[in-house]
């Protein structure tokens, strides 16, 4: 029997909101509709205008080298050169944000897109760091998207080797204090070089074990030494040169030699393998399973994740060796997922995407797209810390935030609402969650445009 409530939950809680017709397609078997999205390779954003990270980083390196050459003689030229960097980053960012919205607003695998964006935020980079502006989108396409249906350890390795992460959390030039390079700097110039523990700490605290995961400061420091040398290739001849420009490159000469003890275990492997071994053990650590299970449950089900659900997901994570589709299937099999009321307030990102889907809106001017997310308080890929965007309703439901949403809803109503019959559209989008109050308000609206605004303003459209 078609189940309208379950279909609304499947498309809204697990997906990015229904597109017209989608509820009907999903209603026969909402669980099966979700499970089917986990089969087959993840979709690829195939926009030929988008550049890969390596090309972008190589370009940035080249412009920076030119800038360094200019610094000595010409101030004005330098200013122009620095502006040139922005002129490289910004169009890339606009293109990436637009391509992402285009996929998210049209895909018929919106559960998979939610999962993808969950991981992108779990392994967050932020365009608050200028250089990340040029690579945040390609990072998501290269490190996250292809790996969301694989194992956690594959995803983790792809992320921590990616130049965007190495740039964002500074590891690309973290130097082992006893490395060849540091020794030479000490002898020749009397300079002390050393580690930067930023990436090592956030891998343990945010990406894998979680802050309660049982690691110490000594573990962070040792792990930071383990991943010295995880860096980015560069062209040219100097000490920076080596590897393929803009791609992951292990630099043996800055790697701290010798064994390191992390979480009670000694790692004596050489070079890159030492770090890979630690990462694999972190991926297998039961604390990681608990941490990921908690984050996923909070994201999809409730701000305060039901402990039993977390325990079951963690168990599946452990037993399957971190097989992600198994964990997603366990998530949607949870009864709590289908019974809980609409408690979570959509993030601005998800709100905008769900409106785009509901109204099947065109993207007429790509340059306007980033501003939509920024105006609503969630500029794409710009969380203010490596913890990513917060994931509780209270983080998003402030009065001013709500007001901004309503103003935007009004703008959308006025721009696109004239040809829309919101009374007919509402049940197609909200299914059984459409309330009588909203239905009545839509019917009484003064204009088609106002009815669309009211639909986007409705409590059941604000929540999931």
């Amino acid at each position, binding site marked *: 029997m078609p189940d309208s409530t379950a279909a609304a939950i499947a498309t809204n809680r697990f997906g990015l909101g229904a597109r017209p017709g989608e509820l009907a397609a999903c209603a026969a078997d909402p669980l099966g509709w979700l499970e089917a999205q986990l089969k087959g390779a993840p979709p690829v954003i195939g926009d030929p205008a988008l550049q890969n990270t390596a090309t972008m980083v190589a370009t940035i390196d080249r412009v920076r080298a030119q800038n360094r050459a200019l610094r000595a003689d010409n101030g004005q030229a330098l200013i122009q050169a620095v502006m040139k960097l922005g002129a490289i980053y910004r169009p890339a960012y606009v293109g990436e944000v637009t391509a992402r919205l285009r996929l998210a607003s049209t895909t018929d695998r919106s559960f998979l897109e939610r999962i993808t964006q969950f991981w992108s935020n779990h392994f967050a980079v932020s365009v*608050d760091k200028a250089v990340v502006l040029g690579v945040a989108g390609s990072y998501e396409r290269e490190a996250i998207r292809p790996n969301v249906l694989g194992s956690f350890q594959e995803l983790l390795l792809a992320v921590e080797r990616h130049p965007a992460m190495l740039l964002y*959390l*500074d590891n690309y*030039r*973290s*130097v082992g*204090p006893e490395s060849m390079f540091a020794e030479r700097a000490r002898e020749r110039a009397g300079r*002390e*070089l*050393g*580690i*930067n*523990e*930023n990436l090592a*700490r956030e891998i343990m*605290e945010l990406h894998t074990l979680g*802050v309660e995961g049982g690691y110490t*400061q000594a573990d*962070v420091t040792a792990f930071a030494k383990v991943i010295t040398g995880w860096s980015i290739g560069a062209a040219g001849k100097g000490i920076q040169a080596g590897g393929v420009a803009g791609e992951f490159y292990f630099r043996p000469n800055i790697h701290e030699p010798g064994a390191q003890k992390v979480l009670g275990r000694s790692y004596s492997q050489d070079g890159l393998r030492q770090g890979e071994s630690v990462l694999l053990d972190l991926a297998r650590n039961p604390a990681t399973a608990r941490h990921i299970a908690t984050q996923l449950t909070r994201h999809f089900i409730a701000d305060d994740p039901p402990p039993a659900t977390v325990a079951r997901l963690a168990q599946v994570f452990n037993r399957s060796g971190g097989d992600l589709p198994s964990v997603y299937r366990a998530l949607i099999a949870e009864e709590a997922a289908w019974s809980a009321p609409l408690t979570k307030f959509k993030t601005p990102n998800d709100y905008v995407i769900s409106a785009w889907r509901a109204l099947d809106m065109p993207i007429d001017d790509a340059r306007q797209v980033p*501003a939509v997310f*920024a*105006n609503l*308080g969630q*500029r794409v890929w*710009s969380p*203010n*810390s490596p*913890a990513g965007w917060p994931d509780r309703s*209270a*983080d*998003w*439901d*402030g*009065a*001013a*935030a*709500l*007001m*901004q949403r*309503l*103003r*935007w809803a*009004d*703008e959308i109503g006025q721009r696109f609402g004239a040809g829309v019959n919101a009374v007919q559209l509402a049940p197609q989008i909200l299914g059984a969650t459409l*309330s009588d*109050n*909203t239905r009545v*308000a839509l019917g009484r*609206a*003064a204009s088609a445009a*106002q009815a669309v*605004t*009211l639909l986007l*303003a*409705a*409590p059941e459209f*604000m929540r999931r």
Partner: protein
Amino acid sequence: MDTAMMKRRRFLQGAALAAGGALLTTRLAFAGSDGDSRLIVIIMRGAVDGLAAVPPYGDPDYARLRGALAIAAPGATDGALRLDNLFGLHPQLGFLHESFAAGELTVFHAVASPYRDRSHFDGQDVLESGVITPHASQTGWLNRALAAQSRGARRGTERGVALGSNVPLMMRGPAEVASWSPTKLAELDEDTLQRIADLYSHDPLLGARLGAAQTANSMAADDAPGMMAAGNNRYEEVIQAAAGFLGNDAGPRVAVFDTTGWDTHANEGGARGALGNRFGALDGALRTLKTRLGPTWRNTTVLAVTEFGRTAAINGTGGSDHGTGTAAFLLGGAVKGGRVISDWPGLSAAHLYQQRDVAPTLDVRAVFKGTLVEHMGVPAGALDTVFPDSEKVKPLRDLFRA
């Protein structure tokens, strides 16, 4: 359109021009409270390097640990701005230095919250919740303090408002707090707004939020002139809005101003550079605050705090990693300033916390408590609920002018 509405439109257009999007990452929240005293808490997220903000240039280990990032002694080129024989201020903190000389700034050093690990997110949670266990409370100490103020002293009509989209944990809780932020989007017309209000009359949370937003908008409309001239400074527009709200006698009394970007793992810079620029921006915004507040400055206290400090030694990438003890500031016309309050532990290897960080010798809650009791008139008996498990942390006294 009536005059108030016109004013609001104009105001919002001006605010939109001025804001440029910076407000979305710098947040300010307000709430009502007693009497004439104003309090602005600036949360500096990311762990401010206390050894850069308030360099202990007189400590024999300072220059060695800091290497290229060390701030020179007062008098040298780009040297520290002298506070006493041991401490100076970062050279970009010129307004704070003037305030110190004028007796309007107290500097605390080797300060920390009770949190002793090095996670930003847990550290900020403890700093804001006032509870010693991370994530154990959904409410913040500042909100609980406001709720604890005697009802009689609180003005019935006052409400809180958050300038910035959402309310930071420090301000969440039982006392009414709303939020406000400039917008680039047009205002809704009254009819649509009324219909949405009707739609939300069955939804307590959204109904309350919408009401609060409307109140904040009308309050903001009264302060339009102050918002028009914000410059390029990343904090300036928010501070100007704060001045508008707090300068209004009928407005809120307490604000929380959220700033980010203090996590200086790489290329931190010394007297000049990334962190220095940020100090300079904040310093300039505080100068603006004083100017804009006019006579209200006399009753104002600005408390600037961060979740923890950074390593005493610089790291391998010209920055510093997560640490423990750091500096804090108490600024304003109400402050009995011109003092550095610090039981300085020293930077020798034996005195560093875990051989790496400035050892904390002052609990930041002592500053919070002193401020709440002496400046905001919160009853001392309420402090145990505002800061649970803090009996041993006595309020710092005599921080304010009589």
